[in-house]
């Protein structure tokens, strides 16, 4: 089940990369949805609500790495509004910083890839990686319910 979810998320990211030219808003939403689904699984493991599984931990990091690598491509000038986007204008006002956040995150993910072997390591890595979510959403996403 989890494998299917993660695979679907990974495939969705891959497939939508092709679509990105056509509908960047839908693509970035789907990419973030994939990140959210992976986070949900990681969170359950970190909290002990689901058994720790090193393979799953690795897959989660793969979903993250893919998003960190590609997300910044999905914010062209013509995608500032529409599609109920929650992208904040700050993305386009401060492109360099926006890009840097993803690069920094990618570097952290890379470091964390050595920390998927046991629950304690994963917990620390996962906590650190998900901290980046809030830091970026604070500046680059408008309020939403």
């Amino acid at each position, binding site marked *: 089940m989890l494998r299917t979810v993660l695979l679907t998320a990974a495939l969705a990211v891959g497939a939508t990369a092709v679509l990105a030219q056509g509908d960047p808003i839908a693509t970035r939403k789907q990419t*973030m949805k994939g*990140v*959210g*689904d*992976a*986070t*949900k*699984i*990681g*969170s359950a493991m970190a*909290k002990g609500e689901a058994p720790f599984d090193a393979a799953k931990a690795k897959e989660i990091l793969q979903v993250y790495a893919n998003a960190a690598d590609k997300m910044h491509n999905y914010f062209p000038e013509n995608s500032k509004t529409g599609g*109920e*986007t*929650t992208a*904040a*204008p700050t993305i386009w006002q401060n492109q360099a910083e926006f890009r840097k956040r993803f690069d920094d995150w990618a570097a952290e993910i890379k470091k964390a890839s050595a920390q998927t072997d046991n629950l304690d390591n994963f917990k620390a890595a996962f*906590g650190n990686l*998900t*901290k980046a*979510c*809030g*830091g970026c*959403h*604070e500046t680059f*996403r*408008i*309020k*939403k*319910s």
Partner: protein
Amino acid sequence: MRRTLVILAVLGLLGALAFWFLTDPGLQRAGLEPVPAGEADLANGRTLFFAGDCTSCHLSPNQDDRTRLGGGKPLPSPFGTFYPPNISPHADGIGSWTPEQFLRAMRGGVSPDGRHYYPAFPYTSYQRMRPADVRDLFAYLKTLPAVPGRAPDHALPFPFNVRRGLGLWKLAVLDGKVFEPDPAKSPSLNRGAYLVEGAAHCAECHSARNALGMIPAERRYAGGPNPEGKGFVPNITPDKTGLADWSKGDIAEVLSSGLTPEGDSVGSNMVEVVRNTSQLAPADRDAIAEYIKSLPPRVGRKGPQ
């Protein structure tokens, strides 16, 4: 003609006198009670500092030290732009304040020089705080670094720039009542209610306001437009347009890690709130969650704006 003018002049004068009388900060009784005797509890003060989210508005901008409360970061609102003041223990901040003056500011919204504070400073919630807790918070603030510098004056258009006029508004919304625990409810639920309704001032952002800037009871905690700009503040009542699907644990989790049950993270200025709530004792986050879950469900709106 002359008679009419005289009558108008007299009425005008009476009106001005009534305004002057009704807007007198002295009419606000909250925060005039004595500061409880005894040594301040710094650990409790620290808890209230993080529960109260003081840093969200008063942190010195463009630096990372989260204990430097020099103020000055612009706070946009529908009424104009506020510049939160320095609340560090420097002479430019609260360095020369007495505990009595601090209590009066927090619970009565009146400054040491006897003027009204704008309710961007949420004394409408802080009035619920126990005077002993306010004393402890003051003592804790005094342990933080002294930061020099004063914030610019607020940039507000008429009539909002008439500070005195706030007296009328305050007469309508400030009752000055300290939170009363409900003996029929559990201690943890009472603790959560105390934090949420008082120091944490959750309702100030998570409620839509009317044209007078007041929060109608039926909109309390039901979310609304973001007062600071684009977007929408979520409904946090257990309605299907709010947090109906969230467990108590989910709410405690979001206050700890910022992660939602969907694997999303909170954004915008809730991120700063979480930086503070994550510093609370787990039991306090659980108590807040318990109280939020117990709120009456109210219909808000779903989806981004």
